[in-house]
């Protein structure tokens, strides 16, 4: 990072750093200065490494299989998955870039890398937008081929998670709900072809080698928003947390692993008394890969469980409507597990949580419940008799019981669902499996002191999965009749399921991601042309020209000055001096976030006096940048028809395009004329600058005299 830059404003205001961080969060974007400040404070506080952990592995690749691909990882407390949208920090940028992770890997030699498919902000492609309407918060996904599509970046450059939803009407896209849209940081519906610089309405099947289905919204984003699950491998879990245990001889032991991270460490949140069941579907692509079978178990009153999402249904045979599920449980434990989860394309995540269409379920479930329960009991009977599988029966019994109890609780205790969102729970729940295979799940929630039964389901994969959609919003929608589908993996080596996770996690994943990390590689992964940004900023009235600066100022110092003077962040760039610029004062173009800020700065500078350390007042005005023309005029190069052909050739081959004039030619005579003119103007400039310097000195002297 910019070691040489001074953070004179940062150090003195240790406390303000935090304030600033919050403010920047409010802004929704993070300014450069803030980064610096945050970075500085972080470095001072803790220059040690940031928490990092790999998640699920994918294949290996590259020469000698040196590259390990991953599907997820946890960085600085935030879990990232493939196809997540992230903020990418760029040192020179006021606003971070946004991109989608399309590849994650580690190469022992080169470290951790991510491939990022970019989103464009409308301002970045303003020149190509024409009169197209752009929604607020709209982004454009890069497509086509060429620079700007996707880049490989160090993983450490990720600055945080970004919630980008696709609102394309494309049939392959899962339409987001209104709530989700409200929560989304950005949305996109069109792509920007980087090769032809065109806005495209349609999405190709592949973008940057990534299946477009992965680019559209995810199902669990849809219906799971809140119902994220943490699944841990049994091995891991038993190692990590022996708090929960079931008998080892119980092959089918099932345990629900609820997402403690999301709901402040407590599984109870999801299994609150009003929640008789919650549908949890496991779509673990890797399960099928590994030939592990997944069994879907159904709760008794699932008569109306209809996965709200069609795609989910299509994609995964394991997700069934309730009838099938009931069949599954009736036919035997293995029924569900026979269905291999073969569709891998769809989900990068291993888990899908589906929340049944609430409205319809509401009534249906309520109405049907009594019958369902009896149904189940009926179906239960033969099995007990046949003794086909104790485990199965046990589970069914258990479920029935759970359901009944839950109902009871629901009937007797009327607790608003809401408190659970924030309630902090102790996160320990016990699963004891007695010989009758009846699981008693006891969950304590210290927030509301409500005991509730957790329906059990376990997905014990080797990997730990966490949903990253950590918003609690959709949780509000949970209705009493939400169902739980239990999914268990009966092929697990150690069937004893054990878990309780006590991980501290903030609810808002983005907040965590905001902080700038130390030791970030500052590779420039995408340099938007400064000219374009100047132009856009000027059109939007955000561009200010600062004058009368110390010519030796650096761009970073200008940003610092603006920060000190106005408490506003900006992106500044000094105008480079040429032969014709005054050595007395430097100029810089400054990009502000909004027109209001820019106008405020100009007004303040006009009325007040911001005195710089060289004793000069800062000047600011709004001025258009002069941008290069396509065919600029240039005086002094004469073209003679005969020579034209030759010149074109020279241009093309870039050979012998230069020469010194020899004194016996007409060219030399004319060149001397030019020389004369050049000398004359040099001299004039010198005089002017001298005179200006003199005037300046005279005035400055008055200033100093008054001071002393």
């Amino acid at each position, binding site marked *: 990072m910019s*070691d*040489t830059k*001074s953070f*004179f404003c940062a150090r003195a205001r240790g406390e303000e750093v935090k304030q600033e961080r919050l403010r920047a969060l409010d802004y929704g974007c993070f300014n450069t200065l803030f980064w610096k400040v945050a970075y500085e404070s972080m470095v001072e506080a803790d220059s040690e490494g940031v928490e990092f952990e790999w998640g699920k592995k994918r294949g290996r690749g590259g020469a000698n299989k040196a590259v390990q691909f991953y599907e997820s990882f946890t960085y600085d407390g935030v879990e990232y998955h493939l196809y997540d949208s992230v903020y990418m920090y760029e040192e020179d940028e006021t606003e971070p870039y946004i991109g989608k992770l399309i590849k994650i890997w580690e190469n022992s030699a080169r470290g951790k890398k991510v491939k990022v498919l970019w989103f464009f902000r409308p301002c970045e492609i303003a020149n190509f937008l024409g009169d197209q309407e752009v929604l607020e918060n709209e982004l454009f996904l890069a497509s086509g081929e060429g620079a700007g599509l996707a880049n490989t970046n160090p993983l450490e450059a990720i600055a945080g998670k970004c919630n980008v939803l696709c609102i394309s009407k494309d049939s392959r896209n899962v339409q987001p709900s209104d709530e989700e849209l409200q929560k989304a940081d950005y949305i996109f519906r069109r792509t920007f072809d980087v090769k032809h610089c065109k806005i495209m309405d349609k999405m190709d099947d592949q973008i940057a080698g990534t299946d477009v289905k992965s680019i559209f919204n995810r199902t669990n984003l849809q219906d799971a928003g809140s119902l994220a699950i943490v699944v841990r491998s049994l091995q891991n879990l038993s190692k990590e947390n022996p708090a929960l245990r079931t008998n080892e001889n119980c092959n089918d032991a099932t345990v629900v692993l609820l997402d403690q991270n999301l709901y402040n460490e407590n599984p109870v949140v999801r299994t609150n008394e009003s929640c008789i069941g919650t549908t949890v579907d496991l779509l673990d692509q890797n399960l099928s890969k590994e030939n592990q079978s997944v069994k879907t178990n159904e709760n008794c009153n699932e008569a109306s469980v209809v996965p709200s999402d069609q795609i989910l249904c299509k994609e995964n045979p394991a997700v069934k409507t309730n009838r099938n599920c009931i069949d599954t449980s009736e036919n035997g434990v293995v029924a569900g597990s026979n269905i291999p989860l073969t569709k891998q394309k769809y989900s990068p995540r291993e888990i899908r949580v589906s929340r049944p269409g609430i409205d319809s379920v509401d009534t249906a479930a309520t109405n049907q419940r009594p019958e369902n329960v009896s149904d189940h009991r009926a179906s239960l009977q033969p099995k007990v008799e046949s003794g086909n599988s104790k485990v199965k029966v046990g589970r069914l019994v258990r479920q029935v019981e759970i359901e009944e109890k839950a109902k009871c609780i629901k009937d007797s205790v009327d607790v608003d669902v809401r408190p659970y969102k924030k309630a902090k729970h102790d996160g320990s729940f016990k699963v004891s499996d007695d010989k009758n295979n009846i699981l008693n799940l006891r969950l304590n929630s210290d927030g509301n002191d409500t005991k509730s039964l957790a329906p059990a389901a376990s997905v014990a994969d080797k990997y730990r999965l966490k949903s990253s959609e950590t918003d609690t919003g959709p949780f509000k929608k949970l209705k009493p009749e939400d169902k739980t589908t239990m999914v268990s993996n009966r092929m697990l080596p150690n069937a004893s399921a054990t878990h309780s996770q006590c991980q501290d996690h903030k609810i808002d994943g983005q907040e965590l991601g905001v902080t700038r990390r130390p030791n970030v590689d500052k590779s420039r992964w995408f340099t938007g042309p400064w000219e374009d940004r100047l132009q856009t900023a000027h059109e939007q009235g955000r561009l200010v*020209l600062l*004058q009368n600066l110390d010519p*030796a100022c*650096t761009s970073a110092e200008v940003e610092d000055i603006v920060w000190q*003077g106005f408490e506003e962040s900006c992106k500044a760039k*000094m105008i*480079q001096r*040429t*032969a*014709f*610029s*005054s*050595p007395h*004062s*430097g*100029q810089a173009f400054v990009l502000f976030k909004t027109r209001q800020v820019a106008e405020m700065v100009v007004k303040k500078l006009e009325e*007040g*006096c*911001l*005195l710089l*350390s060289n004793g000069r*007042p800062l000047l600011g005005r709004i001025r258009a*940048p*002069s*941008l290069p*023309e396509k065919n600029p*005029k*240039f*005086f*002094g*190069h*004469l073209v*003679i028809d005969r020579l034209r052909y030759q*010149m074109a050739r020279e*241009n093309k081959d*870039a050979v012998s*395009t*230069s020469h*010194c*004039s020899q004194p016996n030619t*007409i060219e030399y005579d004319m*060149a001397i*004329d*030019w*020389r004369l*003119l*050049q000398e004359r*103007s040099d001299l004039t*400039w010198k005089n*002017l600058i001298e005179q*200006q310097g003199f*005037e*300046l000195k005279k005035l400055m002297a008055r*200033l100093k005299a*008054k*001071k002393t």
Partner: protein
Amino acid sequence: MGTSAQPEYAAFEEKVKHTVYMDNLSPRVSESVLRNALEQFGSVKSIQFIPNYLGPRNMPRCALVEMENTKQANSVLSILAQFPFMINGMPRPVTARPAEVEMFSDPPKKPGRNITVRWLDTKDPDFAVVMQLKRLAQRHSAEAAFMLEKQLEEEEKLALQQQNTLKSNYKKYEMIDSVFADGAARRLARIYNMNVLDD
């Protein structure tokens, strides 16, 4: 931080010494053309065109050319001072001068320099003077802009004048060529009894 800044700045200063500021370049001069033109004086390490964001649009371009060492940079400067040097067109010669720190797009911060700012109170006795300073600065920049405009005008004038001269000269030559070609010159020579084929 402070320790690394010193050598970094020193390295930058060294770079400045290797660098030549080129001006009066045609907009059609590309990096490769410029590189080719200057390779004869030594090896060109890097070329950076200085963007013109403020001046009139048809200003000649300028660029920073970093040479291998100071000696090569000096040889560029001295040759270009002695001879009118043409790149990608004539007769307007390009000019070169030693580069300055401020010409670079992102110079490192000079170590040990700190900038402070303060808002001046309106009641401060200096306020009036500072306001005057502001006006002066505005005037100065207006003067400079005017200068630049004038300079461009003169350049245009000279270019136009030269073009006209060249055109008329060219016409004359073509006329002579044509009278020789169609035999008119020889016929006239015979009439006036002159020898035109003496070479």
